[in-house]
């Protein structure tokens, strides 16, 4: 792998960048692999990378039906945080956050992880109490958390509506200073390049259309580029988890919903922190290019269409103005949607399945981007050892039967509610 650095950039500049090598190869699929990962999003690619790096398993293929990162990896609003209350979540996401902190150098690819802070706004005493509880738990779990009062929030985000007329008065907020954003495409590309360098075959335009089974064991996949045998199969297809698992005959406690997001035109810096408001159902940050990136709740119906409708867009833009009255004159430049694999408790499924050699990483809902390195780490472990890592034991498929659910929001067994 040709190393990237300011020096290599300068060296190549002399040659007008005419001999940069490919970031990753474009191999033909082999007839068989030790492990086949279905889905070339951040999770699939990270899993392949850690299989090779941590477990020495590099006879691995990542099969992507379209282009790498074309699913939710390339559609999400890139918020990275570990501000969780429940112990299983806190442990897992904090591990992931720690990996993020070293990821650019680990991959030798700048994923632009920007620890600009994630601020959850509180608009009532009840919300302040809930944030106090979460912040206290975070600190005892060794995770950074700062409970801000109204003035503390005003110092960070003066553009918020602090007037007496504000529909959502600002009481305070919970800040995770180490949270932030990252460049989504770079995460896919960086993992792809690093995995490829370790011998992983990354195969795009290769849709898995069937899963081969012998009894309770999976043995390979049918694809649009032919049959590929596999010692083990790991599923990392996010929004399509239910659909692809069904090819193996599994029915999962997952519903597919649509989540939309939008960006404004690029503007000079005006917002330095990620701001979210549960009460107003909106969140916003500013990208390095200057666009405000914002979104809100799920659309109101289940769908596999990667495009949404106007009501959800109108609802979160309206909420945005309620919080930031100065944003009304700005323009929305582009909006899009992605398919969310919503589980019954709002937490992911990472682990074994009733089928042998068949593993699932899915159910990421609207929050799986931040998990990318962490989930790759534990999923690789799970596949390599045929047993979960301690960090993902709790995220088993059986938990829905046993009731060991991880319902961070307490929204109950309604996938669309999380």
């Amino acid at each position, binding site marked *: 792998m040709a190393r990237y650095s300011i020096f290599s950039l300068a060296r190549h500049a002399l040659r007008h960048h005419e001999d940069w090598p490919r970031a990753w190869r474009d191999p033909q699929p082999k007839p068989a692999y030790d492990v086949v990962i279905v889905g070339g999003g951040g999770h699939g690619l990270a899993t392949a990378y850690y299989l090779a790096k941590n477990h020495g398993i590099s006879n691995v293929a990542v099969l992507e039906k379209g282009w790498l990162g074309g699913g939710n990896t390339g559609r999400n609003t890139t918020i990275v945080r570990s501000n969780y209350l429940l112990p299983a979540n806190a442990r897992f996401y904090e591990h992931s956050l720690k990996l993020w902190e070293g990821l650019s150098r680990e991959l030798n690819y*700048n994923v632009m*992880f920007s620890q600009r802070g994630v601020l959850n706004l509180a608009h009532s005493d009840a919300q302040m*109490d809930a944030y106090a509880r979460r912040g206290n738990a975070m600190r005892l779990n060794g995770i950074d958390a700062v409970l801000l009062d109204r003035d503390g929030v005003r110092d960070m985000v003066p553009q918020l509506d602090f007037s007496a007329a504000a529909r959502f008065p600002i009481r305070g907020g919970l800040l995770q200073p180490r949270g932030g954003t990252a460049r989504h495409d770079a995460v896919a590309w960086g993992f792809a390049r690093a995995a490829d360098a370790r011998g992983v075959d990354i195969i795009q335009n290769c849709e898995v259309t069937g899963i081969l089974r012998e009894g309770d064991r999976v043995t390979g996949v049918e694809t649009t580029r032919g049959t590929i045998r596999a010692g083990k199969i790991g599923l990392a297809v996010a929004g399509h988890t239910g659909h692809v698992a069904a090819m193996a005959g599994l029915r999962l406690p997952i519903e597919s919903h649509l989540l939309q997001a939008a960006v404004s035109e*690029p503007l000079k810096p005006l917002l330095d922190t990620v701001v979210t408001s549960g009460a107003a159902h909106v969140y916003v940050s500013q990208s390095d*290019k200057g666009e405000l990136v914002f979104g809100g709740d799920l659309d109101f119906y289940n769908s596999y269409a990667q495009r949404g409708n*106007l009501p959800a867009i109108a609802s979160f833009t309206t909420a945005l103005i309620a919080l930031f009255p*100065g944003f009304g004159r700005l323009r929305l430049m582009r909006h899009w949607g992605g398919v969310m694999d919503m589980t019954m*408790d709002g937490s992911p499924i990472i682990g074994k399945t009733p089928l042998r050699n068949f593993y699932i990483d899915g159910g990421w809902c609207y929050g799986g981007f931040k998990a990318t390195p962490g989930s790759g780490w534990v999923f690789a472990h799970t596949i390599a050892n045929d047993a979960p890592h301690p960090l993902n034991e709790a995220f088993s498929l059986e938990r829905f039967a*046993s*009731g060991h659910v991880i319902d961070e929001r307490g929204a109950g067994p309604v996938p669309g509610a999380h």
Partner: protein
Amino acid sequence: MPPQPFRLPQGGRIDRSRSLAFTFNGRRYDGHPGDTLASALLANGVALVARSFKYHRPRGVMSAGAEEACAFVQLGEGARSDPNCRATQIELFDGLTAASLNCWPNVQLDFGVVSDRLHRLLPAGFYYKTFMWPRRGWLTYEKLIRRAAGLGRAPSEPDPDRYEKRFAHADLLIAGGGPAGLAAALAAGRTGARVILADENGEFGGQLLWRDAEIDGEPALRWVERSLAELSSLPEVRLLPRSTVAGYYDHNFLTVLERVTDHLSPFAAPTATPRQRLWKVRARQVVLATGAIERPLVFINNDLPGIMLAGAAQAYIRRHAVRPGGRAVIFTNNDSAYETVAALSEAGVAITAVIDARAGDTAAAEACLRRGIEVLRGHAVIDASGGHALREVTVAPLDGSATALAGAASTLRCDLLCVSGGWSPTVHLFSQSGGKLAFDAASGCFIPGESRQAERSAGAARGSFDLAACLAEGHAAGLAAARAAGFAGPDSPPPQAPAQAMSPIRPLWEVPSPHQGRRDRKFVDLQNDVTAADIALAAREGYRSVEHTKRYTTAGMGVDQGKTGNLNTLAILAGETQGAIPAVGTTTFRPPYTPVTIGALAGRGVGDFYDPVRKTPMSPWHEARGAVFEPVGKWRRPLYYPGPGEGMEAAVRRECLAVRNAVGLCDASTLGKIDIKGRDAVTLLDRVYTNSWGSLAIGRCRYGLMLKDDGMVFDDGVTTRLGERHYLMTTTSGHAEAVFGWLEEWLQCEWLGLDVYLTSVTTHWATAMLAGPRAREVLAAAGTDIDTSRAGSPYMTVREGHVAGIPARLFRVSFTGELSFEINVPARYGLALWETLMAAGAAFGIEPIGTEALHVLRAEKGYIVVGHDTDGTVTPYDLGMGWIVDQKKPDFIGKRGLRRSDLVRTGRRQLVGLLTDDPAQIIPEGSQIVRSGASLAATPVPMLGHVTSSYWSPALQRSIAMALIEGGQDRQGEAVEAVLPDRTLRAVIGTSRFYDPEGVRLHG
């Protein structure tokens, strides 16, 4: 008055009789009605308008419409300042001010241009390869990058303008009012169909506004005028100028952004009129007559001010009466630019030469030669030079494949270069509708293929660039749409135009360079400063999927969303990857077509109209009394009522003691109320609550707990049997809508056979809660015909009658542990009831009670508040409320969930009481509880649970708390510690029934 040196003495659609003064970058200029900011700047000889996004290169006006990639300005100042406006779409008004973006100190002398000098270090994606040192360095680099990036500045004040939304149903929505759109509107309108014709321009006519054409034997603009007159006379036709069809969604739902007053000075705009209006149109049929966008040509330094699309030059001459330059060169690969040649000659612009990439003879070239204009066939402009304005171009012959030069280069002086690389149909809306594009190799562009919705494209939007064809297709599409929408009205003859013979285009995606390799800077995306070399680099590094190329290079991701650059990008990518253009495919066209004001999406839903606050009938009294409010769901409830000079603590203490010792009055109108009727009402209750309801007698009340199917507590409240088949359920204030939705979901989706009808009556009734040992006396003083005695109205009953002369339901329930009546009256009497009770209670020491005191009082009793003491992960058993779960019932929601292994294990968190060792210390709510003596040094610290409710109890004269603690019910008497930010507080686990545990007082 400064002159307008480039204004033509006659012609154009401007009003020379009036002058409009405007300011650009601090300098005053004049223009005329009919000008855009761009045309007025050109008329004044202002060539340098902007600096580019990445390299801060000088840029001028390159187009005359929505596709503009360069001439972006900050419009206006202060609260009405508007960042990132296209000068080409701003209609000039008197007093307009605008400034260049992204330059410092000014557009002439911009220090940002160092990035242009350093460009070799900054190829596509350079930031992915560097800035990784030191480990946390990115945050520092990012600050600099952010400052350099971005375009305009957001205003800091709230937007003073108003926006409207409007729904419309149409038989036919036509996007685009050029020849095809007008012909479609006429054909459909004449059948009687309801037609909406929207065009983003201030005037209808599209290309006819600036092309020299004839329709039905008269000048095309006369036909436009006549058509508009006829359309205006048709009652079912609506014309929407300045209206961009922005989004095309499922089920033929489209948004149209109408700019109602943007073309007026903010000071001249009528105040009652919104600035913009967002139309939400549900159309039976749609005709897309959105025209086409001209493509630039890709050669070295093709971004200099003075290089303009050929069609735009024609538009400035014919529509705005502006001479876009003094000496012009035209560079084309197709016939359309020859119309510009004619327009330039008419305008008196000297023409150095026409450079036509096509080697063969064409009729258009012949005609030029006959007029004495030099045409260099088989040539290309390969380079341009100049500083802030174009000075000269270099031309050279092309070889047969157009991938190399075939001879010596020469230079030509000019200050205007008109370029045409062919036209791309504006397929954005078609693509948004879900339609599939097809590649038309003959015209070298993508055209609409298979449709997915009830939509037709016509004219240039369909790749038909000939006027006669545009008119014919528009007419046919309009008529077919009307027929499809059910209108049999008469057909009329389509408008006619003379057919034009066109010579074929010679695709020329990238002009070859004089040098080997990729060292030259030929811009493909002028908005984001992406060069052909960047595309090649992306392809070389494997970012070959068109989406990867786009994202890696940022081509097509600017404010213009790549309207002029996208196809060139694809074609260059195809060349680099040895693929065909259709195989490369396009990126997804995402809504909106051009950016939409966020305020317009919100419409009137701002300020008080955003998520309106709910108020009870008694609210005016609370406000007058100076209550401090808190949000509860969408409600605002009084938190406490401060007396003079009194803080929250003192007020709450006073209110609590009033209830314990005398009487208090609380506005409980926000409690959710659901009226339940029907034969199976009791079956519904049995299924949604954990306890049994069959035995509840008429007139009796019962407390119930509702679970989700996972066995977790969802809501609680008292339900009363009002009649044989009639119940009134109350829910928590915050969950009223959720519970109603929950019940309806079960009834409508799962239990279709049940004969039950639900009505939300939350706001139908106002509820005053009278609580305290003297409550009965207050009732008596207010006057009631109900027997309120212990025997007449026992605990957990309802009685109907009158209170203070108002028809009322009197519920004998208690949330405070005291004798208590919840008086429900029709909402319109709520305030009267409240005032009467307060007056009647004065003699007994009555106090109004806020929610905080209510919380304290219920906590003293150990009563839970769902959502406060529970969080969706708590079962009835965890709350110590196993007594309310009737496991013998055949089923209820949550019964199966409750049996799952995690829900029956030991060690679950259970609700307990906590008393601090120091009674004066109150544990903050949300504190985590750890084992006594646990070390806090090493994280993670094992946590036993957390404090859910915690207050000072005025009745007990000490602090009290409730907590969810692992195995808490078996830890009675155990000491634990609550962790505060700076210290810990010791407390002992006990019962949560702190006050009157026997419940004597509530019976009164």
